[in-house]
């Protein structure tokens, strides 16, 4: 714990020191990244040493103690945060080298380090007031980072949407904590929360508030609208931290609340499964429709958070059915997928940053053929894509596999098959997960193909593209390697999450013999190894067969045309069109189509744009309505100072009269 505290101090002090650097790029990057890495190393060492003495410092704040505690749940999240932020900082030093000179680099690195510190603070907080303070600091620092390129109007818009969304979410959290505090006799410490008992109504209300409040930060649909705006707007290493770690603070909150409430009614599990299925399927479909690499990755985060929610839902249903297998598999799958997603999503966002640096754009329809020019970026992107699609031998497979097993337990295990809630919930989750997996493969085949294969769609951009610098390649490589190692050593990785799972089950008085349920993971490892061995064998075989023959290199895309051009390739919308056609009633695309006319058509055009369904059909009408309602009060804003003061005086007099009644 001392090491963790030291890490916090290093991050905060490093952030302060960065401010002194002002606009000096080199000093800011050196100080900022070295303190970020030092803090992460300290934090990870602290976790390995594993002394967990809760710390409480005096603090002059009503109801607040500076209480920090580290348990199994916190440990997992702190580890994820430390690893991802350190590697993002390594990438950031190279990435920001190419930013314009007048940018406030000192401030950016200061915010980066403070963001790390506040996220770890959120994970370690053991008091609601301290938790909310760290939570708000996290929101504000990440807002500052999103606004790094504030001279673009789109970025400013994204920042404002993010700020509004995060504050609406926090408002609900405030109510939730106060409600918990009222039930616990005015105490706002987590220890008091877990000691208190809650009736089903209070537990239900608290759970719903948490689901919406924390779900906003996690990016669960339909509270996700800020995510595809803010994540692409931030610099790429910040997007990696936001997508890899920051949205996980929302998941952390939901897990914490499941732990605090102990046993939840079965509808809570159902709600998690439902919202998970909606986010997962909706997220991946929207990702498939995007035309910007980073926006697409952001929607894919919505999908993966949905998968995590599915796992948590299975776990809660298992707790309700008192079934150890379902509980373990659900929670372990969710937490393992969280760990995995942090690795591959930050990898993919860093890749997107590399592509942006090399070509100056992240628009899918302007890229293509980058694999030969950027082998490191391209191959690590391929590893990330395979991982995120949940295919063996990479890490994405293990988590989703566990959730699958958990979802199918009620079918296989006669002990719980009587519980309809568990059965239907499990089946829904299994079907949703299968659909998500397949669509995710389609989505990343499309993305990888468009960006890295084929011929460059804009020759000039591709000519100029070259591999990014060494520090950036190092970060990419390390993350890709971790994806592979976690994939092969899935049972070992799962040991990391087991303590958190046991803690969750323990809060609901359910004893688990967890290791028994993780035997399938050994097969996952073996499969992964087998896939790698087979691939290597095939590679060797190919080399051997080709030995002594002449291998010709030719254009990738020919199709037998006499004069092929790069524009004949699949575009981002044409690749996705067959799938999006099926869901056109849900996901409306705005099309502009000028068909070719006459026998010798001179001009024709087609353009399609898919906007966010929820933003278009839910939030925009809602906010329009609120605006028009508030517009009716505009007569009060007449601009006459005297009358404003008069109305204040009248209000005061009315209060006085009421008091003296």
């Amino acid at each position: 714990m001392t090491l963790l505290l030291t890490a916090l101090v290093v991050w905060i002090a490093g952030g302060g020191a960065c401010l002194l650097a002002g606009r000096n790029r080199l000093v800011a990057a050196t100080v900022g990244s070295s303190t970020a890495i030092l803090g992460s190393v300290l934090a990870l060492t602290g976790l390995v040493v594993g002394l967990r003495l809760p710390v409480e410092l005096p603090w002059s704040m009503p109801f607040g103690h500076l209480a920090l505690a580290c348990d199994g749940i916190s440990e997992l999240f702190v580890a994820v945060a430390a690893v991802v932020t350190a590697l993002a900082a390594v990438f950031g030093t190279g990435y920001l080298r190419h930013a314009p000179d007048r940018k406030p680099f000192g401030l950016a690195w200061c915010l980066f380090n403070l963001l790390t510190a506040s996220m770890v603070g959120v994970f370690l907080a053991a008091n609601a007031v301290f938790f909310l303070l760290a939570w708000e600091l996290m929101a504000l620092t990440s807002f500052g980072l999103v606004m790094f390129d504030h001279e673009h109007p789109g970025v400013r818009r994204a920042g404002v949407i993010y700020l509004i969304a995060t504050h609406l979410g926090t408002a609900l959290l405030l109510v939730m904590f106060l409600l918990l505090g009222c039930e616990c006799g005015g105490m706002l410490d987590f220890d008091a929360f877990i000691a208190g008992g809650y009736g089903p109504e209070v537990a239900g209300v608290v759970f719903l508030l948490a689901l919406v409040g924390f779900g906003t930060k996690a990016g669960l649909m339909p509270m996700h609208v800020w995510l595809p705006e803010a994540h692409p707007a931030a610099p790429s290493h910040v997007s990696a931290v936001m997508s890899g770690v920051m949205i996980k603070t929302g998941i952390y909150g939901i897990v914490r609340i499941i732990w605090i409430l102990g046993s939840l009614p079965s509808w809570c599990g159902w709600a998690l499964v439902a919202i998970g299925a909606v986010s997962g399927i909706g997220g991946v479909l929207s990702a498939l429709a995007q035309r910007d690499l980073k926006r697409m990755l952001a929607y894919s985060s919505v999908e993966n958070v949905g998968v995590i929610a599915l796992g948590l839902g299975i776990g809660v249903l298992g707790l309700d059915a008192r079934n150890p297998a379902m509980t373990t598999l659900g929670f372990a799958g969710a937490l393992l997928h969280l760990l995995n997603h942090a690795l591959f999503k930050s990898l993919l966002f860093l890749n997107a940053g590399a592509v942006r640096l090399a070509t100056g754009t992240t628009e899918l329809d302007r890229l293509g053929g980058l694999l030969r020019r950027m082998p490191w970026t391209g191959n690590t992107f391929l590893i990330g894509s395979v991982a995120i699609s949940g295919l063996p031998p990479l890490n994405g497979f293990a988590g989703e596999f566990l959730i699958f097993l958990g979802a199918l337990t009620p079918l296989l295990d006669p002990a719980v098959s009587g519980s309809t809630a568990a059965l239907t919930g499990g089946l829904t989750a299994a079907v949703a997960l299968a659909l998500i997996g397949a669509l995710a493969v389609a989505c990343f085949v499309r993305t990888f193909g468009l960006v890295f294969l084929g011929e460059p769609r804009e020759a000039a951009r591709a000519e100029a593209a070259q591999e990014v610098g060494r520090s950036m390649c190092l970060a990419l490589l390390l993350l890709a390697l971790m994806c592979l190692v976690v994939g092969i050593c899935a049972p070992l990785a799962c040991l990391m999450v087991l303590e958190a799972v046991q803690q969750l089950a323990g809060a609901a008085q359910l004893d688990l013999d967890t290791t028994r349920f993780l035997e399938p993971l050994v097969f996952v490892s073996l499969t992964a190894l087998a896939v790698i061995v087979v691939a290597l064998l095939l590679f060797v075989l190919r080399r051997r067969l080709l030995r002594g023959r002449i291998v010709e290199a030719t254009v990738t895309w020919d199709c037998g045309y006499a004069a092929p051009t790069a524009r004949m390739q699949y575009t981002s919308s044409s690749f996705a069109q067959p799938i999006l056609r099926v869901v056109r009633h849900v996901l409306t695309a705005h099309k502009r189509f000028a068909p070719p006319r006459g026998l010798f058509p001179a001009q024709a055009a087609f353009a399609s744009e898919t906007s966010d369904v929820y933003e278009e059909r839910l939030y925009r009408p809602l906010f329009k309505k609120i605006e028009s309602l508030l517009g009716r009060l505009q007569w009060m804003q007449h601009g006459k100072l005297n009358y404003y003061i008069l109305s204040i005086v009248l209000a005061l007099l009315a209060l006085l009269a009421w008091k003296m009644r």
Partner: protein
Amino acid sequence: MNHILDTLLVILLLSCFLLLGTSRLAAAVRMTAVQGFMIGLLPLAIEGGEIRLRVAILAALIAVLKAGVFPWLLMRTVRSAGTTHEERPLVGYGLSTLLGVAAVGAAFWLDSRLPFSAEAHSKLVVPVAFSVMATGLFLMVARRTAICQVLGYLTLENGIYIFGLAIVSGIPMLVELGVLMDMFVAVFVMGIAIFRISREFDHIDAAQLTSLKG
């Protein structure tokens, strides 16, 4: 019965009537200065015989700020704005004075309904505080020029200060300094605002600010 205290309070009350009845901005600023001076003397009068250093310093500080610095700033603004009179007040001067009398009556009635007077240093403190506050609020509502509104604000502050003196026995120094700091900033900001208004719009008529609404 503290005669000095009562005298000061009566002077304060009278200054309120003068503020309500005058149309000349310079006279109004001067009247606020007088009020500020009286306010500065109040803690001394309450302390009575033995005057401690801390109270003396505080009294001096208040007197210098309220009777010296603020009026000087405002006078400067009046001179540079080129307006000497409040031209078309929303409520006339005669009516204003009558309403002031009514406010004093109401303040005494209010005092009789509230349980403060028992601990106060003088029977007059609470009613005078209420009347001064009412005068300040009325000035802000019924006058057009920004200067008069600033004066109204200062008067309101004076009223609150008197009320604080009446309720709290002894003056918590920190709170007092906080209030002074607050006011200093407020006057500063308003001074600048008035200066800007007069430069941009050729007048200091706050009623013209309506064009700024959304």
